[in-house]
């Protein structure tokens, strides 16, 4: 959680200084969901994510340097600069990909579940999605398919109360999205998304169900995002007081520090050391990302296919040709 928080602090600042191009969506405030859920998974489990993917990516084990370099659009970035903040994947770490088409993370997670089931694997899929996304048809279809086929998948709705500038009531006619589980005949669990241990426990149980052949679970984690929908969002739709209250009362990191302290599980300077470590890691990531090379422009024609199609080269060559009429 400390790493995500600090990583995104840098993203926020570097973006504000125009070092990071494109659109960036921060997950600050929601760290406990990413860490609690991914912490409950094995390395082999696959996670699918959304436009708000930094937390999930780091929690699933992606390298902060590569991730930040990707946000910078640099060559050693996670997607070689091809994807940016909204498109990162690392199949070795079980990060099947961020999907900024709202809802698209969910069928992809279901697909991982199909592979797991038909190959008899001992891993499962977990799809993160937002509260707004569950209005999207493909989410409904994908959960229904998984329920009908008893696939090993866990669906985690991060309910942060907003979809862009739209409120929960503008998107849904129910208070708890976990109630949607009734459509699929699967368990619907509500968990405090600010409590990392609660999330961990709930997702662990859901993973257990998945692996033991009992099918999918829908988990609704109630949480909150501190930053705007995207960096630059003027947030006309909520008050500063609301944000301040969540930060003051419900911060997943502060509260967990308190819990650990009470339990005497944080000794002496441990926290200070951890913070320093994290600082060092993200400082290094910023240096790495800044110093990295831009990808070669010509590499823009790679990776469209495994077996390249001649059409791309054809068009490219024609477009780049100088000079007179060819006969």
């Amino acid at each position, binding site marked *: 959680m400390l790493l995500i928080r600090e990583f995104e602090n840098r993203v926020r600042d570097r973006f504000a200084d125009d070092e990071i*191009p*494109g*659109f960036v969506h921060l997950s600050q405030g929601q760290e406990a969901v990413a860490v609690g859920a991914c912490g409950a998974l094995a390395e082999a489990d696959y996670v699918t994510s959304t436009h708000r993917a930094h937390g999930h990516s780091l929690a699933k084990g992606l390298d902060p340097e590569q991730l930040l370099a990707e946000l910078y*659009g*640099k060559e050693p*970035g996670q*997607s070689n*600069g*091809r*994807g*940016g903040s*909204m*498109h990162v994947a690392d199949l070795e770490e079980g990060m099947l990909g961020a*999907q*900024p*088409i*709202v*809802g698209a993370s969910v069928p992809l997670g279901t697909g991982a579940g199909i592979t797991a089931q038909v190959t008899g694997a001992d891993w499962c899929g977990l799809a993160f999605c937002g509260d*707004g*996304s569950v*209005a*999207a*048809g*493909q989410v409904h279809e994908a959960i229904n398919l998984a329920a009908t086929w008893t696939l090993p998948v866990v669906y985690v709705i991060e309910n942060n109360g907003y*979809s*862009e*500038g*739209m409120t929960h009531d*503008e*998107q*849904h006619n129910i208070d708890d999205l976990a109630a949607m589980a009734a459509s699929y005949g699967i368990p619907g669990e509500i968990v405090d998304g600010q409590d990392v241990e609660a999330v961990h426990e709930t997702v662990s149980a859901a993973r257990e169900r998945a692996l033991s052949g009992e099918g999918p679970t829908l988990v609704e984690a109630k949480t909150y995002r501190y930053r705007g929908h995207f960096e630059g969002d003027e947030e*006309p*739709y909520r008050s500063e007081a609301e944000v301040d209250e969540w930060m003051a009362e419900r911060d997943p990191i502060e509260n967990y520090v308190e819990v650990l302290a009470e339990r005497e599980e944080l000794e002496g300077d441990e926290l200070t050391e951890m913070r320093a470590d994290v600082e060092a890691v993200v400082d290094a990531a910023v240096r790495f990302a800044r110093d990295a090379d*831009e*990808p*070669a*422009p*010509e*590499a*823009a*024609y790679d990776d*469209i296919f495994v077996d390249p*199609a001649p*059409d*791309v080269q054809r*068009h*490219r060559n*024609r*477009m*780049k*040709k*100088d*000079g*007179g*009429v*060819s006969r």
Partner: protein
Amino acid sequence: MSAEELADRQTETRTVRDALRDGIREEMLADDRVFVMGQDEEDGGSFEVTAGLHDEFGFDRVRNTPISEAAQVGAGVGAAATGIRPLVNLSFSDFIGVCFDQVMNQAGKLRYMFGGASNVPLTIRAIEGAGLNAAAQHSGTVHSLVAHLPGIKAVAPGTPAAAKGLMKSAIRSEDPVVFFENKTIYERRGPVPTDEAFTVPLGEATVERAGDDVTIVATQRLLGEAIAAASDVDDVSVEVLDPRSLYPLDTEAIADSVKKTGRLVVADESPLSYGFHAEIVTRVLEDAFWSLDAPVQRVGVPDTPIPFAPSQEDEVVPDADDVRRAIRRTI
């Protein structure tokens, strides 16, 4: 707008964004059946085209929707068939895949397959184009797909005047229209007639720059790039047309220009294969075969998704240089 079209009209300078908003607002004032919906639409939508309209017209006329493009368009068709005139904002045009069935099979075919029983006065806004480093799923130009669909009209204006004039025509049209806006030209400025009765009919191209040696048919952002390239190439007299409507397509205006110049460049941000360009080329070939003096040239995206890295986005997204080279290749 061509000098010709603007002659004798009083105009004011507007941006594309403001011109679009003016067009929508005027139609809302004129016809209370016009109903606007989209995600975050009450705050003006993704690029603030409809900013202020919710304050002015209220929830009964301007509404936020859930993230449900299929329902937005499908219900838009149902609402259009039963008596109102929905204007649905899809935001990024890349999202059109989510509701493609409703565009293709409902909006486009309803009237036909019911033997004319119902009109579908629906307008769908979709925001296209690369250039903001928004990567593969937020930078697409998808209008060639829609222009291919039977029963759908499609427009993609390149100037503020065309933006306003076509928006008014689209909203008034009894047929479904998909209105493509390029996100990088919202700040493009130009003269717009002040007369409220001003509209641009669906299916009329304009000559945006007159010339004799080469015809460039250029859309949206590339209209500006084409005009820039034309000015650059001062030894060649270049005529630049904005087709404005993709369907219906003003074949006559384009063919007439090529009959004069004998040379054709088509500049459009669609992926090249099976894209907008090929239809223009083929229509010209059909109508002006004997006038063509050189191979035609296509300027577009060479069938890549749009990459994120600025260095790569610049590589695949065409600009004035590409148009300039294309002009040279016809001479």
